[in-house]
């Protein structure tokens, strides 16, 4: 296990130096997918404009689709964040790492890029989100068609994970 931790550190250093981007050379097919995606990206909605840009997607107005309509963020609730961290470990960490892009995006700093409602809806309602939400659709393509898994978290559990995300710096 020690060996693994050291490896992680080394890897982390490497990743930071190369901007945390995927170190794999994209294959031809990936390129094609990306091109097609840019063409197909919806242009009707306001938020969609930002989506078509291939850089960091930022949209704090889009609340996404799903059961969460409004979230008020108060002072950080550390107890809630701790339980969120535990849930994140079992239910999410196979695909999301807090130190790098992995199977899915790194949740660190997510609330600088998305609204809290969007984050919770993406956790609770991923199937509809990747079909209808422009950002979620774009992310699905960006992450090689690897779907966001619905891990069937309850609303409270999802809220706890969101609280944990607030602690990630």
């Amino acid at each position: 296990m020690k060996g693994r931790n050291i490896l992680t550190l080394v890897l982390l250093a490497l990743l930071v130096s190369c901007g945390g981007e995927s170190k794999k050379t994209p294959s031809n097919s990936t390129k094609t997918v990306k091109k097609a995606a840019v063409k197909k990206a919806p242009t009707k909605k306001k938020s969609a404009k930002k989506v078509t840009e291939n850089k960091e997607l930022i949209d704090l107005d889009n609340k996404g689709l799903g059961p969460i309509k409004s979230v008020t963020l108060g002072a950080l609730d550390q107890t809630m964040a701790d339980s969120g961290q535990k849930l994140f470990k079992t239910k999410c960490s196979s695909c999301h790492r807090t130190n790098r892009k992995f199977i899915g995006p790194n949740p660190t700093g997510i609330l600088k890029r998305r609204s809290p409602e969007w984050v919770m809806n993406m956790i609770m309602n991923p199937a509809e989100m990747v079909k209808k939400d422009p950002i979620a659709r774009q992310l699905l393509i960006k992450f090689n068609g690897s779907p966001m898994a619905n891990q069937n978290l309850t609303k409270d559990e999802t809220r706890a994970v969101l609280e944990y995300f607030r602690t990630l710096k």
Partner: protein
Amino acid sequence: MKTTIKLFTALLIASLLFTSCGNANKGKKQGALSSNAAEKVYIAPGEHDEFYAFVSGGFSGQLAVYGLPSGRLFKVIPVFSVDAEKAYGFNEETKPMLNTSHGFVPWDDSHHPDISQTNGVLDGRYVFINGNNTPRIAKIDLTTFETTEIIEIPNTAGNHSSSYVTENTEYVVAGTRFAIPVPQRDMPISEYKGNFKGALSFIKVDPKDGGMDLEFQILMPGFNYDKAHPGRGDSKDWFFFTTYNTEEANTLLEVNASQNDKDFITAINWKKVADYVKKGGGKKMPANYAHNVYDDHTHAATSTMKKEVLVIDPSEVPGAIYFLPTPKSPHGCDVSPSGEYIVGSGKLSADLTVHSYTKMIKAIEDKAFDGDAYGIPILNFEAIHAGSVKQAGLGPLHTEFDGEGNAYTTFFISSEVVKWKLGTWEVVDRKPTFYSPGHLMIPGGNSRKPFGKYALVMNKITKDRYLPTGPEVTQSAQLYDITGEKMELLLDFPTVGEPHYAAGIPADLIKSKSKKFFRLEDNKHPYVAKSEEDTKVIRKGKEVHIYMTMIRSHFSPDNIEGVKVGDKVYFHVTNLEQDYDVPHGISMIGAQTSELLIMPGQTETFVWEPKQPGVWPFYCTDFCSALHQEMQGYVRVSPRSSKIKLSWSLDDE
């Protein structure tokens, strides 16, 4: 030449059309204004069937789940036979399910499914089914549609008059078809008569968790006990068993067991016997039988050998057991929804014999006996006989009921299903079956409350009904609409194995309870890894245990080194998904076992014993996502003498 062929073909088609038109016309005439058959069985894409049908697989050893009226196959539940597709009997977790007193038995002959009941009405909690060959009773949980318990039945051979439940699922009942020495011993076969016994077993079902426990066995005379059904309503405390080979023949039974004009239906007041047991009655005899239980939290089965069984001699409980004379080698033993009529289908009789429960009770009170057999009173036939359906057909086998006062009986020799009226015994309708039906099933048709919309007839022979597939052809089921005065054949569909019997239930009674996935929090498997952080590889001498996880679309770890030739490698794999219908599979090149097919939240284990050095890949066998083809990994196998340390990683972490 071409013209001749064309002409011939045209004629052939015309004749076929003509024949089928003839049939259709008949159907229409009988079905009055009924719409066409195709419409009645058509379930539009995305729509659900109205009924589940659990159809036994006979020599396949399994239980198939179909939808009615469409006849679509949804699942084959492995019960008594190994199933490489689902790793049943191949993975470490389910191997104990098939343990018996004879060791691991990978196959059986599954016959008679029966759904649990409350107050005589289907409650949709469990399906019970019997293994005929190495006598066992299995329980299938209808939330997971998986076999969760199997109990072996001692002192039994050819476990055929099984597995039927009493009105509140107090007991599931199993009876021996073959009489055998009890206890088993080395003795001349010719001394069968008077020395062999026929055990009828009563397995207690725990009302809370459904746990089965063989409470007692009645050691009956050495006849063959063929089929059984419980009473209901007034007769609910009784159980009825058809009883043939009262000649006690031990060779050429087709002749020697067909001598007596009348055999029996055995009537047992099980309540009385159970009360006797509660008061300490019966005696314990040494036995050896397996009790195998699968746990949904450990995702694994355990097998316990039981060493004792409580046996009861009929003479110990006077007034509890009687013989009802029934012509001739009766097979089916079916009780009407009211519990009043007990139908005995004498295979070799031209008539169907129906006994009256009310009359039976009176005959017992009046002591209207015609002697006894081994001390068990034989009731006077006339005193109990309710009526006979005269010349109904040839080779009657089984009867079910529609709840409207009608009974439906299959006739094996004359290949037909016959509808008749309870009480008047008149034949109302008859329809051909294709061919040689065994059982038939009306959903709830052996309970107090039948759902009398369809009858499913299960055929033994299909000959020309389907495209030929060499000498072995499919067996089939046929669906009849029984809502009208006349029956209407709607559909033929092929079945898995040989369908002996089926149990049907309205889908609404169970589909909302169907489990979607297993919660990771509840996973108590000793080798679970609940997150990628928990994954590891441990060596214990020559055993290597890999704690692995899977999620769309990777394994963790997916690179393992330090395994050596001669190691026994256990892959303990947990599916971390927590969503409906996201199973993953895993298989390893050269593993002498099956793949694993692991449901979300579940852990399963397979063993691999690498025989050559090299780098050997494993991969996901269930197309799980767009990146399924990327879901793979490698194990490096080094020579025994190698000093390479055990290591494991995912993406070099």
